């Protein structure tokens, strides 16, 4: 609304709600495109038809934007109440490279990360919120075992920090500090007490922020701590990234018993830092290595750590 009026895009305090006093001071109906699209179908086919789809509390269908490590990414429309497994394995064809499903970030950058145990949960408003995520924008980012949960929290927080308008203090400064702590952890500089500090400040930011962005931005951090606290602890205490994803915690060495001696890594290395002969385990020359992670990304056997 502010942008349409020619002002700087900043959230305004409510009340007055837009429906009472919105654009240019006039009552304004603000909804997502998806909502408006549904409205026209409800008009055409009637409310009974619409509520015949979905669950008790979440009627109709829901469009998800699926990205991440699934075979088929894109927009999918499914009836509410379907399980996450059906969405990922039936609709989207399963995980890329047949790797192991690890987690799914539901609800966009402000949503929450759900672990593999939640894969059989129904996808509706109430269950998602109970699990620490939300329906939100309908974004689903699917992660496999190569994804580090601390790094993913950092990634989403970086997004919300950049998107912060800068108006209210908790969101403007708080998110930046949270991000700095996560960056510290993912680069091996994590300190004892960081997890508790993150949880504590996340709570305060959620409580005190002005708009939905700040009120939900800490969700990925809170949900990853809730379900993957051990990953945080490994980063902080052992300075290791269990998924071998945080670049600064990678050792760039080949795990001998995992290496299938396929010879793919020397071919992708841009600086010829990998010595390999047919039938031999590859070896990385750390003096030459520029830590570009090409080999790591290429290896299908998770043999580089």
């Amino acid at each position, binding site marked *: 609304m502010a942008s349409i009026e020619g002002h700087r895009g900043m959230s305004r305090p409510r*009340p007055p709600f837009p429906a009472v006093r919105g654009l240019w001071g006039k009552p304004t109906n603000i909804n997502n495109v998806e909502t408006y699209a549904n409205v026209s179908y409800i008009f055409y086919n009637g409310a009974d038809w619409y509520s015949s789809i979905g669950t008790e509390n979440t009627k109709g269908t829901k469009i998800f934007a699926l990205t991440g490590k699934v075979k088929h990414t894109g927009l999918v429309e499914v009836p509410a109440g379907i399980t996450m497994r059906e969405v990922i394995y039936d609709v989207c064809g399963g995980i890329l490279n047949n790797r192991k499903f690890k987690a799914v970030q539901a609800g966009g950058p402000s949503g929450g990360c759900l672990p593999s145990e939640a894969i059989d949960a129904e996808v509706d408003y109430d269950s998602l919120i109970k699990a620490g995520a939300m329906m939100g924008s309908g974004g689903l980012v699917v992660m496999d075992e190569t994804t580090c949960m601390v790094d993913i929290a950092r990634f989403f927080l970086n997004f919300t920090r950049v998107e*912060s308008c*800068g108006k209210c*203090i908790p969101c403007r400064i*708080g998110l930046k*500090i949270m991000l700095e702590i996560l960056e510290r952890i993912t680069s091996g500089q994590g300190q004892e007490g960081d997890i508790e500090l993150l949880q504590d400040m996340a709570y305060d930011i959620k409580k005190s922020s*002005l708009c939905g962005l700040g009120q939900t931005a800490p969700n990925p951090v809170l949900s990853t701590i809730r379900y993957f606290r051990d990953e945080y602890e490994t980063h902080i205490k052992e300075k290791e990234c269990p998924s071998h994803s945080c670049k600064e915690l990678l050792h760039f060495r080949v795990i001998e018993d995992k290496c299938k001696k396929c010879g793919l890594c020397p071919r992708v290395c841009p600086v010829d830092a990998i010595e390999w002969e047919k039938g031999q385990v590859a070896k990385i020359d750390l003096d030459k290595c520029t830590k570009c992670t090409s080999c790591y990304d290429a290896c299908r056997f998770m043999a580089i750590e």
Partner: protein
Amino acid sequence: MVNLTIDGKQITTSKTSTIYEAAKENGIYIPVLCYAKKLLPYGACRVCLVEVEQMKGRLIPSCTTPVTEGMVVTTMTDEIRKVRKTVLEFLLVNHVVDCPVCDKGGECDLQDLSYEYEVVTNRFEGEKFDLPKDEVNPLIERNMNRCVLCGKCVRVCDEVVGYGSYSFINRGFETKIATAFDRGLDCEFCGQCVSMCPVGAILPRPFKFKARPWQLKEVDSVCGYCGNGCTVTLGVKDNQVETIRFNDETGVNDGNLCVRGRFGYSYVNSDQRLTKPLVRTNGELKEASWDDALKAAAKGLKDAGDKVGILSGARLSNEELFLMKNFAKVLGTDNLDHSGGESYKGVTEGLFETLGLQASTATFPQVENANAILAIRSDFYETHPVFGMVINQAIRRNDAKLSVIADKFGKLSKLPNARTLIHKPGMELNLLNALCHTLIEEGLAKTDGVDGLDALKAALKDYSAEAVAAAVGGDADKIKTTARELVNAENAAIVLAYGLPYTAYSKEIAIAAANLALLTGIAGREGSGLYLCGEKANSQGAIDIGILPGNNGLGAQQMLSAAGQGELKALYLIGEDPLVSYPDKALVESALEKTFLVVQDIFLSASAEKADVVFPAGSFAEKDGTFTNAERRVQRLRAGIKSPGEAKTDYAILQSMLKEFDAAAPLSPVEAFTALAAETAGYQDVAIDKIGAHGFVWGGETLQPKKKQLVAVSGVEAPQGDYQLLVGSALYHSGTVSVHAKGPMAVVSEPYIELGREDAATLEIEDGDKIKLKAANGEIQAKAKVDRRLPQGVFFTPYHFAELQLNSIYTGQAAIAVQPAKA
């Protein structure tokens, strides 16, 4: 009304209140950073979060949330305390915390809150800000390293001042407050941002390292410049006015001030001030004792008998004016006048003829609720900036429709949706007549109880909107729309400034404005008003008390003429420098030279240099007494400092003079006020102890006209000649005193001649070039200021600067025909 509970206390409050306001009214403390009484709710700082039982699960910002029936609010819990403390910790992460050298130290909201919430250590860490400071201008310093982004400066500059200097730039953590293109501040320097800043991010530069806030003695007084009557709270240390303190609890101005009020105080500390009486001996002014000076003055005046004239400025207090009037009686003269005589004819004669009044009919705060406003003269914002801010608020809060009758574009023309009825110089009258004509023609005029309609109707027959638009170079539809808006508005206001640079047709313009006020029903209607605003702090007081020629007396111009012809033997000038500020310098010069001249002033003015006796007087900051502002509000002046050297207040000097003539004088200003209230019309109800924080408006909020008499005034012919010079007031100055003040001088330090881009191109004159204007009886020269305010063929120059010698070509006409050339 709404009932709610805050911290267990039952409260009834207005349904438009927020939780914070309801709490504050009832003495319940909630901390705030970004809240300001006069700004719209914003809700950025999150320090005022409270708990509301009906909205469980989240914390509610009390400053933006309206109260609702039955609401149960808790202002402090462990959770609230923790969240507030976290917010403060966040703020202190990147803040430079340079409190020891910050001028805000001791009255900084961030400092106070950090103390209150015991933010001893910070759990978070981060880099300190290292942003460049804005020290380009001499008045306002911006140090964004201390900024908390409460947005008050952005909001006040937009919502109240209507200038829009600041905005947020960048997003997220990189957000900061900046000017356009992030350059140095270059604005009208009213300093509202300074007064609003809760931390040390925006500070008054002249106050830098002058005093700690707790070392200052605060004295509430009234600004000595214009007739708006803003409260200024003097910050005094060691008998020096070091700054003007923020005060939105007292007075009519909500803590708002203009550049003169906020930064124009330094003339009172000037080392150019007169500190000893001067007496002319052997042709030279020499320092003398008070005794000798008083005796010399008394002797000269006694010798002149009743061939004496007294001329005063309008910056004297009511009490001083009262003593002066008594002194005139003692001298046996009716020759008493102030401020050039002509300049206030609008009020004394124009309004009196039509409405039977000699004052504005309503008060300033009412204008905030106006739906339609007509400002006559584009300079209104320049002469009365803080009233201009009230008009801006009416537009923003109330969607008021503003029309401006103007010969050039000014600040008011830039306000949202402002309609400017532009006209050729001096032709305000024609437009006012056309507005009246439209009302009568369209049958909209409110004529109940109004006399003289038929005569006016006949007289206005040639003033149809179309005819006038063609004559003045305007737009007929704009005239009609303005007339309709004014008459149809529930609350409407007509505002007009008067003063020394606006003497031409002042009576006729006031009559035409009063006609319009009658036909629109504005005069005397609750919530609406006709405002005639005097240029000086006590212009209205001077009229109320009657510093006017008596029955057989001479007015200002007549006195000067008579003196020049040797018919007056002595002149007594009090706080007035006619040689610089009055029209027709040759006339003034001969008058001052040919008479025995006594001058009472705070500086050795050009006129004082011609005097036989000079008394060193006191500034407004040294006086106790009262001023009456343009809305009839009587407010108290309080002395903050002692006069320098042997200087005395005008009150004390006049007391001594009365004594020299063996006449009785009231002892104290309070006594004088009691005496003047008894004999001044409208003041009978005003007692000094009834003058509260918001003054006392004599005659009540709405003054009923004593009669409703329409009087026809004829319009003016379009001026002849290709180029016209307009004389007026500049925003940064007021009269001739502000040229002694560092603040205004820092912004506008020398005279200038302003012209439009078209003329500049034709004449091949660039900004800063010297330009020469030749008129019938002389010429003036000054730097050219090229901008887009002036229509083709029109020049403008302010009258404050002596060195311009403006009154060598200005004789009081509405526009001076000139021939321009590059000098």
